[in-house]
């Protein structure tokens, strides 16, 4: 069954902002889908609110709508574009739910649009846990005993019936939000309540807990002819009870006999057929009782998922690409396997290596949140590593996390466990946390038996045995010295994944000495190929990983080669934006005739697609591995080829940190010295002084006393900033000495627990890494600038972004606007002037990002980063200038003049539009966290709203961020004293717009003084006041009552649990939009006003920036 010719135009729905449980894997799948559908000759219309995605680059679709992902908005897009079909299975849960919404609201019917991929019926049967379980039972597959409840009473009834332990899970949710395990009635009550609230259809599944069973996943594909294949099998190291997204997972399955595996495979096919997913990929989860082998089905995701991305990278089988082809009518046997080219896609990949994925969490950013893992996903990113054995891939994966660990222990981080008693160690390991693998290794090294560890943790004996071989090797090497290591010793250690740094520590030597010594005896990495077939057929695709074997498979290269270093696992502060830059660079450089080589460890990304670059090395982005790649590339260079250099300034802080450790002559673009100068506070200040660019008063300190001395000069409030960090890591505003002491404590190297000392993990505090103590500029407007400077000194300013929230809210967490809505042109000119001066002084050759704070018209520079920034993609979408591509070309020596001539550097478009970037925060995942914004960045993703006025654009951005502004109801105000006068204007606006006001005592009094009517005066939390309409109501009750549609609460008091915190937390739990700055409140009022007056309009990027017509990268 070939391509469907009855379709000509297809709407692809993206997955929106990066959130926990839905990250850039859907940019990878969406990008693949768009490329395939365009290749197939369809007119592709794309909707995605996330400007940081590669798929939303105008060149990937004929029409690209960066608009809120909302049924009304999609309806408007469908009405304009009249697609023949909608593809909703490649945009995660978001797209899936929207597709269902479009069906249920009759939109597809009205415009005669077909839903391809999976039918609404199939989606319902898979997603509605009740129907899913019924379906599975019907086909004879077992599921844990369970019942459903739609309210508290029902819930208790079901609990009676099934008995504890119980797991509670809401229907129609992603990433396990609101799920948990209860061992008794009390914990059950609480759990059931939140779960019912979390489910969009307020339905929960109450199920017998089988925590401790082994957990597995199969990635299955099915085509229109009912051919089914398993693309990849995955085993979770952490047993049932830890969300697969939070588990260390391994491909292929390790501990199932073939008879057991085949039974699971049959079950998977029965499942996908019963659910009725006609075409595409599905992810099916199973649990197996380690004692008796009983098998249960856990769930099915009738769409491409996080695991599909992992499976694609793990096997080389491009699930999303193929799913897109299947959706338009092809069958598996009609599609060629890209990698072998000879053989068809209708087969099951077999692999001859082991793949390990390790999640990356951000607990350090959420003080007070226990780092225990459970059935609700909490990780913000993941790293994957490939090795020939599990120990090798595990150690590489742990290195890839960039969490200050060098592998499975054998590093400074391991000392944290030294003081812990054996029993305590086992007790800690019995709770799944990010530290579990390290605890297991430490325990085994102490001789604690595998049986005891297996029963305490549920980790399978096979995995423990493998960790045991790492321990064994370490013991073998104990007391050895570099000079008495034989070739076979080096080889054995490297084959178990030990990094040179780990070995240096073991052998009491240095990383460089270790490297020299092992190279001297010929122990160097060999690069193998991911080929889907275990070497049975020749592979055409150069997708490599390093290991220590006999044979190397990297092919000769005859063209100048540029190595682009990726940004590693997603984390808060460094995410998809940087992958966007790296991918754009690869495309731009390939177009310019270079061969590009990508090095990255993040399986969710487009950069780790084997066809994004000429060669892909799936490796940790660390010094040892990057040097290996450089040497491998140099060794295969033939006439006409050769390594031109390494791009370090597009992947965020990760590659930038390596700049100084790589061969000087190979670092392209801005020099390592300049990079260091920008990071080194002393020299940087001196530079600004020389350039006469004002900075907030401040100095560096490495101890509390030094810090106090500085504060004596500059005075409070002050901002503490560690150097060499990103995302405002461990940054604090201190208002007094106790605050200061507390903040400094958090910077202490290792040993500290939880958030305190968490920075130690990332290097801690030292003479080389002092803390910056700055005067904190209150009520200042923050401004971000992205620019590119070429070797001739010409500069192009990509964009000047004015932030909505004032300085003090991390640039990554505040909304920002292009063009600046309030800054006078004179100020913008000053800012551009400073930016030029700084770029010149640093002799920047490539991208630079500078941040400013404008206080009472005076411009202060906060920091400059001589690298691509988080905002580059947003600027590109807002102006139509492909800034990342321009930067990449400039880095390898092109001049802006040349790029203009080429037509790559175009003049900014979209002049008549306002674009707003809004941050998306993960508070819904962490109900106990204060939603107050601060200098430590906590957002996971971003959305963009663009329209004719600031108000409309802001309103769209809020809608896109999932906090749709209300059009009526009550606005609840609770303002800090210093914000009251500023808040007045906003309050007046709300009343004019027909909202009623509620406020806490002080705020109410202030407003009424100024003649603003306040309908409800509420008591401070806890204290019930008499008199006023607020009789007996406190803020929490009022918000919980549902009358309040918008909360404006600015900080009062500094305690983390100050009154306001309760208000903000309740709002976020109740899903009421909550603004924590007056600036945002004003913006919201403007938005509501404009929104009321204007009908919803949508525009594609191609229309906004004329001339942006489709030009596929390659």
């Amino acid at each position, binding site marked *: 069954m070939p391509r469907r010719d009855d379709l000509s135009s297809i709407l692809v729905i993206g997955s929106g902002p990066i959130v926990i449980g839905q990250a850039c894997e859907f940019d990878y799948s969406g990008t693949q889908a768009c490329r395939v559908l365009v290749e197939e000759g369809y007119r592709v219309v794309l909707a995605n609110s996330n400007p940081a995605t590669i798929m939303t680059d105008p060149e990937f679709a004929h029409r690209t709508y960066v608009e809120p992902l909302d049924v009304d908005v999609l309806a408007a897009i469908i009405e304009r574009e009249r697609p023949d079909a909608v593809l909703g299975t490649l945009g995660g849960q978001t797209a899936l739910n929207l597709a269902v919404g479009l069906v249920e609201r009759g939109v597809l019917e009205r415009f005669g649009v077909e839903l391809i991929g999976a039918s609404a019926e199939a989606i319902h049967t898979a997603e509605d846990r009740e129907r899913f379980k019924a379906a599975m039972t019907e086909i004879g597959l077992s599921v844990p005993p369970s019942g459903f409840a739609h309210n508290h009473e029902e819930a208790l009834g079901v609990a009676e019936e099934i008995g504890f332990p119980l797991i509670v899970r809401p229907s129609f949710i992603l990433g396990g939000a609101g799920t948990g395990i209860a061992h008794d009635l009390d914990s059950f009550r609480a759990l059931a309540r939140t779960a019912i609230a979390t489910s969009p259809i307020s339905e929960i599944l109450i199920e017998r807990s089988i925590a401790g069973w082994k957990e597995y996943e199969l990635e299955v594909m099915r085509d229109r002819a009912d051919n089914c294949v398993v693309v990849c099998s995955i085993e979770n190291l952490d047993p049932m009870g830890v969300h697969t997204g939070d588990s260390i997972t391994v491909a*292929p*399955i390790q*501990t199932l006999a*073939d008879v057991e595996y*085949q039974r699971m495979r049959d079950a998977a096919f029965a499942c996908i057929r019963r659910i009725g997913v006609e075409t595409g990929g599905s992810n099916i989860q199973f649990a197996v009782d380690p004692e008796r082998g009983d098998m249960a089905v856990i769930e099915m995701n009738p769409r491409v998922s996080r695991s599909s991305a992992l499976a694609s990278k793990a096997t080389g089988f491009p699930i999303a690409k193929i799913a897109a082809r299947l959706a338009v009518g092809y069958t598996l046997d009609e599609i060629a396997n890209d990698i072998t080219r000879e053989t068809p896609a*209708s087969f099951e990949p*077999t692999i*001859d*290596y082991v793949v390990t994925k390790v999640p990356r969490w951000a607990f350090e950013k959420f003080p007070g949140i226990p780092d225990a893992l459970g059935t609700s996903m909490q990780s913000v990113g993941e790293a994957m590593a490939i090795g020939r054995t599990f120990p090798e891939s595990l150690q590489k994966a742990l290195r890839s996390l960039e969490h200050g660990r060098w592998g499975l222990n054998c590093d400074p981080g391991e000392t944290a466990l030294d003081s812990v008693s054996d029993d305590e160690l086992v007790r800690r390991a019995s709770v799944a946390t990010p530290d579990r693998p390290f605890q297991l290794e430490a325990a085994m090294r102490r001789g604690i038996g595998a049986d005891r560890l297996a029963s305490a943790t549920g980790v399978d004996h096979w995995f423990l*045995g493998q960790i045991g071989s790492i321990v064994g090797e370490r013991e073998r090497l104990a007391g050895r010295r570099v000079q008495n290591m034989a070739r076979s010793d080096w080889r054995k250690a490297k084959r178990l994944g030990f990094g040179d740094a780990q070995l240096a520590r073991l052998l009491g030597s240095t990383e460089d000495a270790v490297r020299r010594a092992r190279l001297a005896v010929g122990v160097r990495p060999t690069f193998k190929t991911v080929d889907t077939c275990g070497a049975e057929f020749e592979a055409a695709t150069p997708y490599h990983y390093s290991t220590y074997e006999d044979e190397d498979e990297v092919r000769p290269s005859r063209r100048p080669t540029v190595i682009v270093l990726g940004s590693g696992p997603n984390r808060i502060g460094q995410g998809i934006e940087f992958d966007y830059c790296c991918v754009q660079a690869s495309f731009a450089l390939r177009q310019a005739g270079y061969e590009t080589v990508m090095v990255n460890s993040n399986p969710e990304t487009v950069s780790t697609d084997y066809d994004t670059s000429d060669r892909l090395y799936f490796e940790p982005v660390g010094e040892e591995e990057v040097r290996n790649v450089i040497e491998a590339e140099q060794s295969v260079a033939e006439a006409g080829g050769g390594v031109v250099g390494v791009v370090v300034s597009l992947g965020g802080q990760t590659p930038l940190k390596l700049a100084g450790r790589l061969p000087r002559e190979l670092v392209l673009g801005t020099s390592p010295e300049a990079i260091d100068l920008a990071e080194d506070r002393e020299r940087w200040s001196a530079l600004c002084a020389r350039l006469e660019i004002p900075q907030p008063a401040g100095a560096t300190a490495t101890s509390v006393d030094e810090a106090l001395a500085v504060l004596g000069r500059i005075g409070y409030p002050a901002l503490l900033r560690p150097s060499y960090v990103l995302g405002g890591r461990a940054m604090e505003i201190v208002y007094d000495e106790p605050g200061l002491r507390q903040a400094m404590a958090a910077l202490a190297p290792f040993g500290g627990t939880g958030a305190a000392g968490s920075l130690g993990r990332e290097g801690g505090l030292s003479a080389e890494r002092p803390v910056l103590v700055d005067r904190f500029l209150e009520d200042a407007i923050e401004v971000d600038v992205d620019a590119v400077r070429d070797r001739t000194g010409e500069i192009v300013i990509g964009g000047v972004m004015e932030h909505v929230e004032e300085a003090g809210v991390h640039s990554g967490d505040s909304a920002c606007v292009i063009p600046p809505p309030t800054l006078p042109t004179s100020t913008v000119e000053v800012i551009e002037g400073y930016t030029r001066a700084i770029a010149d002084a640093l002799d920047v050759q490539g991208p630079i990002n500078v941040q400013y704070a404008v206080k009472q018209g005076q411009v202060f520079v906060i920091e400059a980063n001589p690298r691509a920034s988080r905002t580059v993609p947003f600027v590109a979408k807002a102006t139509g200038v492909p800034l990342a591509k321009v930067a990449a070309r400039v880095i390898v020596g092109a001049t802006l003049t040349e790029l203009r001539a080429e037509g790559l550097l175009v003049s900014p478009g979209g002049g008549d539009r306002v674009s707003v970037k809004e941050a998306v925060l993960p508070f819904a995942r962490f109900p106990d966290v204060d939603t107050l914004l601060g200098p430590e960045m906590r957002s996971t993703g971003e959305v963009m709203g663009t329209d004719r006025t600031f108000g409309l654009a802001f309103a769209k951005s809020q809608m896109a961020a999932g906090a749709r502004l209300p059009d009526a109801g009550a606005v609840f105000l609770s303002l800090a004293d210093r914000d009251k006068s500023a808040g007045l204007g906003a309050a007046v606006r709300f009343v004019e717009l027909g909202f009623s006001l509620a406020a806490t005592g002080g705020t109410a009094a202030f407003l009424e003084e100024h003649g603003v009517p306040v309908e409800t005066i509420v008591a401070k939390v806890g204290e019930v006041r008499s008199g006023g309409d607020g009789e007996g109501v406190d803020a929490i009750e009022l918000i919980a009552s549902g009358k309040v549609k918008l909360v404006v609460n600015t900080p009062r008091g500094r305690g983390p649990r100050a009154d306001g915190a309760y208000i903000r937390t309740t709002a976020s739990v109740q899903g009421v939009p909550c603004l924590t700055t007056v600036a945002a409140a004003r913006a919201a009022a403007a938005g509501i006003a404009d929104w009321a007056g204007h009908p919803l309009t949508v525009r594609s990027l191609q229309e906004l920036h004329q001339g942006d017509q489709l030009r596929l990268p390659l």
Partner: protein
Amino acid sequence: MSDALLVLADGAVFEGEAVGAGAPGGVATGEVVFNTVMSGYQEVITDPSYAGQVITFTYPHIGNYGVAPDDDESRRPWCRGVVVRDLAPRPSSWRSVESLGDFLERHGVPGIAGIDTRRLTRHIREAGALPCAFGPADEKTLLAAAQAEPGTDGVDLATAVSTPQPYRVGDGPLRVVAYDFGLKRAMLRRLGAMARVDVVPARTPAEEVLADRPDGVLLSNGPGDPAALGYAVDTIGAMLGEVPVFGICLGHQLLATALGGTTYKLAFGHHGGNHPVRRIESNGVEITSQNHNYAVADGSVPGADITHVNLNDGVVEGLRSRDLAAFGVQYHPEAGPGPHDAEYLFDEFLLLMEAGR
């Protein structure tokens, strides 16, 4: 574990360490082939079709879930040796009774671990299956041994692995005779459900079998070169038309030969659990378990239709006689190890037998 070398007849050398049983004089020999299954090593190692061969597993971790008696495909391993990257130090499974290492030792099967099996596989892919020798002995000795190793062309390995005595399994309504050329138990498990199965030695004469009028005859899988089994071809020739015949793997090649077809040796054969096969009748694709070095030449079988082809390389995977009740497949519908996609073939055999009653 002592250091050991693997040396191929063409001189290629691989470093590893000895595992499993010790080989006489520190030298084990055989024809080296590879198998790409990621699970099912025990079934592969106990499959008589590997008689005379040294099995390289492309998946690096072998022995993970130990050894379970239920997974034996015959009464003992017949292969000459096992080559792996890593032999599990600590197997883990509720089904396991011993580690693979102990199993190999108990059955006298030598092995070598720590080998760059990917390099070896790529080598075999280029050079074709070739004789090898491995063990703790020195390189020169091993090379000589490898070059002295005859290989499998023209050798009758089936008689050697076949059951010496007839035996009976299953209690289904029908009566099937299974010719054991290296029979896998998985076939008996499938047939046993539908028939009473008499397993007979490879050299059992046709008259004897036809004498007690079975409903059908199964020609089993088995090792080596079909061209070396003239006696079997004659036997089959005598039975064709008299009784429904179903051939699997070697049995399929023998059937084809008996029908007048010819066979040839593939460069490195098909050994894995993921080969896509087109079922021409339905145009559907089935993922199959495969293990053969020889194949039936396309278009060489008069009076038969090709029913299945391999989508990777077009090799004939199945055929059916137009006017005689006989069909065969080159791959393994009984799985063990591998997918169950082709189980329906046993039902087709059932229908054929019922039709013949």
